[in-house]
Structures are given as structure tokens and as C-alpha cells.
């Protein structure tokens, strides 16, 4: 039972008195101007705050179970660790509000505005966020199990490590959102938009992404076991290192996908996408030589279409590339007294020193990044090599025509 009446509350507010720890449960404060009020640890269970103005109010640790906050203005309000279980926040405005570690289990937030709101570690299990605007909201580690996010706008939202298992994400917009390490198993996302979303290491096992837009989505190392992608758009999606046993890909639309490793790009066209996701085309064509290893006096040959990344130290080695093979000398990679032959694509982030001139013979494409350094001669391919040098790269390099041309 409330210890104050509505009028007494308003008098206290007008006098700028604190209402911290006050018992206001069940009170009708609808339409009241409570902007900036101090309600820390206050009891507001079942309170009617419909259309109330709670702009920048401090509701830290307050209990608002089953409170009616429809249409309330809670812009930039502080609701850290507040208990809003079963509360009704339909069409409430919570832009910039802080709801870190708040409990919103079973709460109704349909069509609420939460742009830029903080919900880190918030409990939103079974919450109704249908049509809510969560643009740029920070929801890392939030629990959204069995929640409803149908038609919600989560573009550029931060959802890393969030738990969205069994959530309904139909037609939600996750464009540019960060869902790294997020749990999305058994989530249903028909028609949802994940354009350019980052979903690395996310778990999507058993989830449904029917007709979803995953163009440019980064799904590297994601778990896609038994994931349903029927009718999904996957052009440009990054799928390096995914585990995709039992994945379903009927009628997907993808001109190409990026099967390249971290920091690299490897376009896999048309029909190969199916083979790659279904495990028939393993990205095992990529060879990686990790940091700390040393390889001396070796002759290495990589077939056409394969991909090689070197972060090791190679000394006195000869590397032969097949047609279209990608060779990336990583940031930690050092090739000393080495020679590279063949019509591959060479990208240098590390260091290359030739053994004898020309140290690099016939590459189709030769790129040196801002971190890269090359000392040697490049003999162009018969159809002229494409060169690209980022500002800051260090070069002591000579370019000569192909011997076949000369």
C-alpha cells in the first residue's frame, strides 16, 4: 500500500524532495511531470505511470514490477538494476536511458523507443519488443531468451555475447549490428535483415533464417549446424571457419561469398557456395603458417585457387603459386632470401627480401600494405601485373617487364 497520495507525491516533486525508498506501489501517477525525480530504491509495483514525464529521473534499483508505463517519457532515465518484471512500457520513450542489469522479464516494450539505450546484462527473457526502436542500443550480455523482437529496429546495436536463443526475430533489422559470440540457437528470424552485421563465433544452431538478408554479414567461425537458410540472401557473407553440418540452403541467393580467412578475402562464386557451406568444399585450400615457426631451404608449391597466409619466418625458400592462388605475407611474416614464382595474387603486410633478382616472378597482382616492406625485383606477368602500394609501405624495389614480352 502506498504511503503517499498522488498529491503528496506531486508536492514533494515540486519541492524537489527525494522520493528514494518511498512506497508508491499501486498509486496513480499517470500524466504527472516527474522529470529528474529521485526514486532510487522506491517501491513502484503496479503503479500507473501512463504518459508520465520521467525524463532523467533516477530509478536506480527501484521496484517497478507490473507498473504501467505506457507512453511514459523516460529519456535518459537511470534504471540500472531496476526491477521491471511484467511492466508495460508500450510506446514508452527510453532513448539514452540506462537499464544496465535491469530486470525486464516478461515486460512489454512493443513500439518503445530505446535509441542508444544501455541494456548491458539486462534480463529480457520473454519480453515483448515487437516494433521497438533499439537503434545503437548497447545490449552486450543481455538475456533475451524467448523474447519477441518482431519488426524491431536493432541497426548498429551492440549485442555481443547476448543470449537470443529461441527468440523471435521475424523481420527485425540488425543492419550493422554486432552479434559476436552471441547465442542465437533455435532463434527464428524469417525475413530479418543482418546486412553487414558482425556475427563472428555466434551460435546459430537450429536457427531459422528463412528469407533473411545476410548480405555482407560476417559469420566467420560461426556455428551453423542445422541452420535453415532457405531463400536467404548471402552475397558477400563471410563464412570462413564456419561449422555447418546439416545446414539447409534451399533457394539461397548469393552471387559470391567471402571464404577468406581473418584479414583476407577469398571470393567463392556461385555453385561453390553450396559446396563450401555443406562441407564439400573445405576452406582447407587455405594454408596458414603461424607466428613463431621457421622454415628454411624449402620449396613449396600451392595449387590453383588455393590460399596461403604466412606469419612465420621463411629463409632461403622457393614458393611456387598456381593460377589465382592468394599468398598473404601477414604482419608477422618474414620471407628472407626467398623467391616467389607463378601467376598468383601476392599481398605483403610483412617483410620480403629476395635471394636473387628477380625475387618475385610473374604475379598477377602485387599489393604492399602500409605495414609492408619489399626489397627486391618484381618481374611482371606476361599480361602485366596489377600493382597497389599503400602509403607508408617501404619499398626498395625494381619492376621489370616479363621475360616473355622482352
Amino acid at each position, binding site marked *: 500500500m502506498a504511503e503517499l497520495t498522488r498529491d503528496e507525491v506531486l508536492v514533494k516533486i515540486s519541492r524537489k524532495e527525494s522520493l528514494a525508498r518511498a512506497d508508491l506501489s499501486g498509486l496513480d501517477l499517470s500524466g504527472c511531470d516527474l522529470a529528474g525525480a529521485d526514486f532510487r530504491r522506491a517501491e513502484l509495483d*503496479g503503479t500507473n505511470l501512463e504518459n508520465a514525464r520521467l525524463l532523467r529521473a533516477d530509478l536506480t534499483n527501484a521496484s517497478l514490477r507490473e507498473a504501467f508505463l505506457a507512453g511514459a517519457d523516460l529519456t535518459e532515465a537511470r534504471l540500472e538494476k531496476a526491477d521491471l518484471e511484467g511492466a508495460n512500457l508500450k510506446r514508452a520513450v527510453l532513448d539514452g536511458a540506462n537499464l544496465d542489469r535491469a530486470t525486464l522479464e516478461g515486460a512489454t516494450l512493443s*513500439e518503445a523507443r530505446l535509441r542508444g539505450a544501455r541494456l548491458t546484462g539486462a534480463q529480457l527473457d520473454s519480453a515483448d519488443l515487437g*516494433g521497438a526502436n533499439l537503434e545503437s542500443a548497447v545490449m552486450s550480455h543481455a538475456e533475451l531468451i524467448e523474447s519477441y523482437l*518482431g519488426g524491431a529496429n536493432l541497426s548498429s546495436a551492440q549485442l555481443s555475447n547476448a543470449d537470443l536463443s529461441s527468440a*523471435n526475430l521475424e523481420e527485425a533489422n540488425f543492419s550493422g549490428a554486432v552479434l559476436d559470440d552471441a547465442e542465437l540457437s533455435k532463434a527464428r528470424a524469417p525475413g530479418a535483415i543482418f546486412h553487414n552485421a558482425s556475427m563472428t563465433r555466434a551460435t546459430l544452431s537450429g536457427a531459422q533464417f528463412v528469407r533473411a538478408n545476410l548480405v555482407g554479414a560476417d559469420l566467420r567461425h560461426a556455428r551453423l549446424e542445422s541452420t535453415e537458410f532457405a531463400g536467404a540472401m548471402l552475397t558477400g557473407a563471410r563464412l570462413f571457419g564456419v561449422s555447418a553440418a546439416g545446414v539447409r540452403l534451399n533457394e539461397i541467393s548469393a552471387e559470391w561469398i567471402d571464404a577468406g580467412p581473418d584479414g583476407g578475402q577469398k571470393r567463392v562464386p556461385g555453385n561453390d557456395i553450396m559446396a563450401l557451406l555443406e562441407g564439400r568444399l573445405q576452406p582447407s585450400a587455405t594454408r596458414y603458417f603461424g607466428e613463431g615457426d621457421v622454415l628454411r631451404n624449402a620449396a613449396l608449391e600451392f595449387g590453383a585457387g588455393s590460399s596461403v597466409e604466412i606469419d612465420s619466418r621463411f629463409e632461403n625458400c622457393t614458393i611456387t603459386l598456381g593460377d589465382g592462388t592468394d599468398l598473404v605475407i601477414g604482419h608477422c611474416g618474414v620471407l628472407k632470401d626467398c623467391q616467389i614464382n607463378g601467376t598468383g595474387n601476392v599481398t605483403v603486410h610483412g617483410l620480403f627480401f629476395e635471394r636473387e633478382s628477380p625475387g618475385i616472378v610473374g604475379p598477377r597482382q602485387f599489393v604492399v600494405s602500409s605495414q609492408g616492406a619489399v626489397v627486391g625485383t618484381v618481374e611482371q606477368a606476361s599480361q602485366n601485373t596489377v600493382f597497389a602500394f599503400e602509403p607508408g609501405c617501404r619499398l626498395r624495389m625494381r619492376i621489370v617487364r616479363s621475360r616473355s614480352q622482352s
Partner: protein
Amino acid sequence: MAESASGYTQCTRCGARIDTTARFCVQCGAAVPGGSVGREIAKTQRTTGASRGQPPPPRSGGSRTGNTQVGTGRAASQRRTLQMDVGQALNAKAKPAPEPERAAASMSQALAEVTAAAPSPAPPEAQAAPIAAILDDIDSTFDNILQDPRKVSQESRPDDIEQAQALFRQITVAYIGPVRDFMIELRMGEPSKEWIQVCAPALASLGASAERMGLAPLATALGELRTALEAAEAGEATTFNESAREQLLAASHGLATLLPEAFAVDEERDRREPIIVRSLLCQVPGVRKVQLDKLYRAGLTSLSMYYVAKPAELAQTTGLALDLCEQIVRRFTRYKSMASIPPDPQRSNELAQLERLAERLTELNDAFERGGSAGVDKKRARQERGEVMLEISVILARLGEVGLVENLERFPFQRKVEALGAFIKKRRAADQTAAPFGTTKN
């Protein structure tokens, strides 16, 4: 009512221009607030309104000093006492009857019965004589109005008759509940022809009373609707077909003008129907905000649309999955068959159903509150609670309790349970004390 210096005032309900001396709006029958008379009338309206699920009119506050200045002499005194007595009589009717009795067969009989049954409150000794005289006055005047309007017209001022007729309209509104519900159902779908058995006797009785009250246009309009209703009974179909619907709606146009509170039902339908449609849709698994938006965007907002919709057409129009559309159509078909059954005047079936649902809600809420410690699946309990509330909303909307539906949404569940319990109790009590016109009390 906004009074003006010209001696006229405006009715707050219908906006009609009325004399400041009048106690009732001659257009819509709304009480003019003020003084003890106004309060008595307000009591009457609340009682009858509750029994029919109508919201009470605005209460008058304070006394109207202007009345005592304007109304002087015997005629003014008679007008005032007439209204006072009717108010007392109707108020007395709201109290439990001493023994079961048959409802009045006509409005005049009803009024006569309640007037006779009304125990006069013991007035203070100083006022006993004048009040006794006033009561005698009112008895004779009212008997005249009811039994022989021509006699009244010779002996009473025209505004007395107008006010009595206005009062008659007001009482009619309260008693016409089943017919009003039928007209709303008719606008929302295809009700069963069994409604005729409920509505025809009420229309006949009201028509006869209206005629005796000198309200010929109203009597004619009631007769027309009754005739249309009985004409629609022909044929093998168990529900009103499209042409019958149109004829009935056309026949009710006159009544909508003469008795707008009872027959201008479009506004009331517009309040009830969205709640029913939304609640029914939300009961279909898989219908959430996204699906609701698609259905509403396609203009599918009324019950009649869902009654005639084919799943394939629905799927094509909205872009929803065919199996979901099939479920939606099935849900509305089920509702239609339930809604086509005419309710008894007391709506006892709906109240019984409401009672069951309130009990279920209590159980679920208790289980939810006990929570995980008692091995209760809170998520399941929460979901079921929501489903029960949707069913409750449909029934309350059908009963015309739209305000209660809106209030319940604002309450926490424990208060929802309490408010529902209070409503059912009040409704049951009202039904016991006031049987609708033309029906038999249980």
C-alpha cells in the same frame, strides 16, 4: 449543460438547444444537472446503466439556484416533484425486490409497479406535509400521463409532457439492452435468427407503451423494426442474410434519430469491435505484432471481413503464410458460431464464462506468484495468464465493458483479478434487482 443569458441552454450529450427550466433534454432525454432532482435522476441512471453495462451520465454537482428563480408557482412545483418522485421510484426499483415477481408487461405498468412498490422515505416532521402534498401531486400527474395522454394534455403544460416523454425515452434506453446488442451484432456479423425471440417481444411492449405516451413517431419506428425483424424470420437460413441485414439496418434508421442512445450503435460497435478483433487474432499462435500490422495494413479490421475471408485470399492480400491464414479463419469461424447464438437478457452465459476465466486467472496468478520455488514454470504461467486475459477481453467487449477492458490493462494481475471479481458480483446483483423490460425475472 451550458446555460446562456437568453434562457436557453445546450445539452452536453447531444448539443440540442433546451429551455433552462427543463430538467431533461427533449432530444436525447439526458438529465439536466442540478439540485436534489438531478441527483435522484443520476442515481436512477447509474442503477439502470449498470444493469445494462452502460456508463453512468456525468453527475451533477451542487444545487441549481437558477431553478428556484425561474420555476415558480404550481406548475414549476409540479414539474420538480414529478421528477423527484420518478427518481425515488426508480431508485427504489434498484433495491432487491421483496419477493420474486413477474416483470412489467409494459413500460407504463413497470412505472406504475415501481411507483407503488417504492417506500417513501420518512421525511423530517417539518417537511412532511408539503412532501406528502407533492407526492399526491406527482401520483396523479404521472397516472394521467401514463393512462390517458389526452387528459394530460388538457391539464398539464406541454413541457410537462415533453419531460415525461423524455423520461420515458431514458427508461427505454435502459431497457432496450438486448435489442441494442442485437443491432451491434447485426453490424458486426450475421447473428442467429433466434435473436428475434429475444427482441420482438421487447419491441412490441415498448411500441405499445410509446403509443400510450403519445410518442407516435417512436411507436411507429419501433413497429417498423419489429415488422422487419419478423419478416426476416421467413426462410430456412438460421442467420440473417445480407438482404435481411440491410432491411433491418434501414428499419432502424428512424430509431437511431429518435433514440440515439439506444440505436445509434455505430460508435459503440467501433469501441467493441477492435478489441474483439485484436483479441481473437492474438489468440492464434503465430500472430504477433508483425502479423497484426500486415493484417491491419490490408484493411482487415472488422469481424465481417474475417467471416467471409478465404485463407488463400488472406495469404495473398497480406503476405502471411497460408497455414497461419487458415488458423485465423478457423478462429473467426469458431467465434462467429459462438456469437450468433443470442444471449439471454441477463447475459448469464457470458457471466458464467467470465467467472470461470476469472477463477482460472486467479489460479494462474497464484501459481506465477509462487514461482520456481513451487516447481511452477513461470514462463508458461505468464503465457497462459496472457491467453486468459485475451478471452476475458473478448467477453467484456461483447458485454459493452470497453472501459473495463482498458482499465484492466493498466492494473497488475492481482488487481485485475479483484476488479473482475467485483465486476461480476456487481453485475449479478444488478441482474437480480432489475430484469430487463419485457422479460421475466429469475
